């Protein structure tokens, strides 16, 4: 069998060499189709990638529905119940029903550097609670995060990202130093290493989730105490809260929990429903308690619908292009194979089975597929290079990894084999006797 494969490969190369232009056209068509498709599939792949490999299966975000029955959701432009109110978030936090749990909100603060040669600037960061760092596995370069006691005491402490620490304090260890943020002096207790989940799944829809990262973290209680304000979506209904972030009719907080087993997740979901029912009895919630949901991390990303419609459209367009290329290759292969009817009938007359003819032509198309795949990889790299030079926020992550590279080659071989099915089937049905007569 091995010998036969070698022989077919030899036949295929000879046959392809005999018609260089036609072969070139087929390789080009497969290459263009695969290149375009893989560019778009790679963009889609990196956009829907798991931001927390190894942890995502244990991370969940609860969803409550504290909105009144008659709520004008159109006024918000997004779902106001995607976020939690302060009383609900604190209740869930204190209930402590998950392994770990953390509340968070986006912050945007003015940093006033002590160094005279640096102007003040604004940075994005996160107000959160102690479990954030252990739950998400944030790595530290120096120092550590704060404790639950710091949360309770609204301690004036801050954790900086490496880039911000370096900007403010150069190469010296920032831990223990004071940094002035807004109108307050905060003590640096830790410096994280370069940490940027992509997408930034825990941030709300105002964030550019593929390019923004948090440059500081400070206790949420401190932020509310100092009235630092949030940079995320704030939705209020009922009485205007006048800037009081503790209002029971203002949603602005994100909440994440770590639940290690599906049983724990089911129990937590029941807890959320029970909590909603209890709030309904108290008259705070008006909507059905079963509106309470528990999203898994990947489920939440689907719910948030992060991939823009344009990117999906581009992918369908690329696949349509690939289809046309495949039909093109199919027509060319058919013409090419049928022209060799004479050769086929001689081989058939000499004892080759239909299956042998089929395999012979199949191998010829695999050779075209491999060559087209190599060309496709080059074209896809070119396509991704041009995507990376666009200003879209996901542009910088559009890179092909090893798995996508293999997928490209596999898709190219698969596409050319699919395209050769009909021509090869047609060719192996050439009757031996009839063709021999005409020779």
């Amino acid at each position, binding site marked *: 069998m091995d010998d036969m494969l070698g022989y077919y490969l030899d036949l295929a190369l000879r046959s392809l060499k005999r018609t260089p232009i036609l072969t070139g056209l087929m390789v080009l068509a497969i290459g*263009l189709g695969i290149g375009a498709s893989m560019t778009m599939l790679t963009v889609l792949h990196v956009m829907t990638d798991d931001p927390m490999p190894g942890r995502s299966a244990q991370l969940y975000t609860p969803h409550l529905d504290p909105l009144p029955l008659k709520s004008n959701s159109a006024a918000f*432009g997004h779902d106001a119940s995607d976020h939690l109110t302060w009383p609900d978030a604190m209740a869930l936090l204190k209930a402590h029903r998950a392994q770990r749990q953390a509340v968070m909100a986006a912050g945007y603060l003015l940093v006033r550097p002590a160094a005279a040669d640096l*102007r003040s600037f604004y940075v994005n960061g996160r107000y959160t609670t102690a479990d954030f760092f252990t739950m998400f596995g944030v790595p530290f370069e120096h120092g550590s995060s704060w404790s639950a006691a710091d949360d309770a005491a609204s301690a004036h402490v801050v954790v900086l990202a490496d880039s911000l620490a370096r900007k403010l304090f150069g190469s010296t260890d920032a831990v223990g130093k004071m940094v002035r943020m807004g109108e307050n002096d905060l003590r640096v207790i830790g410096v994280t290493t370069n940490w940027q989940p992509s997408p930034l799944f825990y941030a709300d829809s105002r964030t550019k989730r593929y390019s923004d990262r948090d440059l500081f973290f400070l206790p949420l209680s401190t932020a509310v105490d100092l009235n630092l304000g949030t940079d995320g979506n704030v939705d209020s209904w009922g009485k205007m809260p006048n800037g009081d972030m503790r209002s029971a009719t203002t949603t602005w907080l994100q909440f994440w929990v770590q639940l290690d087993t599906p049983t724990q997740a089911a129990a937590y979901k029941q807890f959320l429903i029970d909590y909603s029912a209890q709030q309904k009895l108290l008259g705070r919630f008006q909507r059905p308690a079963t509106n309470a949901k528990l999203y898994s991390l990947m489920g939440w990303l689907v719910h948030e619908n992060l991939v823009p*419609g*344009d990117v999906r459209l581009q992918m369908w367009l690329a696949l349509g292009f690939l289809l*046309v290329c495949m039909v*093109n290759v199919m027509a060319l292969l058919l*013409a090419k194979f049928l022209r060799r009817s004479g050769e086929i009938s001689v081989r058939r007359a000499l004892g080759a089975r239909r299956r042998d003819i089929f395999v012979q032509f199949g191998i010829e198309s695999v050779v075209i597929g491999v060559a087209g795949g190599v060309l496709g990889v080059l074209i896809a790299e070119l396509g991704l290079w041009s995507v990376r030079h666009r200003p879209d926020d996901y542009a910088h992550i559009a890179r092909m990894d090893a798995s996508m590279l293999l997928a490209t080659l596999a898709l190219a071989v698969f596409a050319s084999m699919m395209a050769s099915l009909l021509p090869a089937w047609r060719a192996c049905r050439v009757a031996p006797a009839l063709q021999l007569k005409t020779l």
Partner: protein
Amino acid sequence: MQLRPILSTLRHHRLTAMLLTLQVALTCAIVCNVAFMIASRIAGVSMPTGIAESELSTIQSTGTDPHQNARALRDTDLAALRAIPGVESVVAVSYALPLNRNDTFGPVCPNQQVFEQAMRASSLFKGGDCPLSSFYDGTPGLLGTLGLQLVAGRDFLPGEYTAKDDPPVAVVSRALADKLYPGQEALGKVMVMGGNAVRVVGVVATLARPNPHGMGDGYASVITSQLPGSTSEIYVLRSAPGDRERILKAAEVALFKVDPTRVIDPDQVQTYSQIRDAYFQRDTTMIGLLIASALGLLFVTALGIAGLANFWVQQRTRSIGIRRAIGATRGDILHYFQTENFLIVTAGIVLGVLLAVLLNLLLMTHYELPRLPLWYLPVGALVLWALGQLSVLSPALRAAQVPPVVATRSV
């Protein structure tokens, strides 16, 4: 030209001809829809804003000293900016400019009665009689600096400006005026917005909203006589188009000279063209991609047609020779291949037009695309016919060169 021999040859190569037909059909269907998408995106990207875009540059400044007198500082800033050579005029706005996405909008009702009705029905934010509109503000001279075209009424009088959030008068866009008071004169009418009564004193021809693709009409805009009040504002400078880069650099220096503690985000120092490009950036990416894919499709189809025709000419060299030997002219051979191509492409177009309409229906349900105007179909057909004839020309000419003597050679 007799069709019968061509049809009989095509019947012989039935499967191959069908595949080529299918390819032409798919190309026709996709290219028609892609061309339509390109046209609608280009129309979107070139939407007018009503302001003198090419002459404007903007710089955002945020004061960091909470004890500062924001208004006094702003006046100093404006004077410093006006002193830069080349600056024709300058104003400060809170944050909203057309297409910069800093949108504050709300329902604007034509009168108190409609407002109360909408309140009772709690339908205020549903548009309807109180269209959702964006609010603009600015220091005196805003209309002139932005280059807005006043079509009725006047700009604000000095006494009408206020620092409080109950501006007495407003200038509205014509789109909003027509919506609020259809068939009536808008000047002098008293609108109700946010519970405040505001009198219309002017109407401008066009003023796009900061986010025209959000909720409501993209041109429903209100300029109120409220002065910017916070420590953060955007200075808008008007100058000759070529001066803008230089003026922005000078403006940054001048502003830091007035107050070194302020924050100026380098990303918010931009010409208006940059604001516009940023707003439409996704669309321009998409237009580029759509054009590339349409051209790619046509290219591959042309290659397919040419490749197959070339192959067929080689294959039929002997029969061409025989036909030439028994009296066919070169023109006959040329026409033979051209007609064959015409038949295949026509069959492809018939199928392709059907597919184009189906594809459009599919896109309409999934991507909120409008219906494909029917005239795209004949244009698409013409393009494919031309493409087919061009691709087949070189192989057909080669076929026409086959000498009759080929017929006499044995295989």
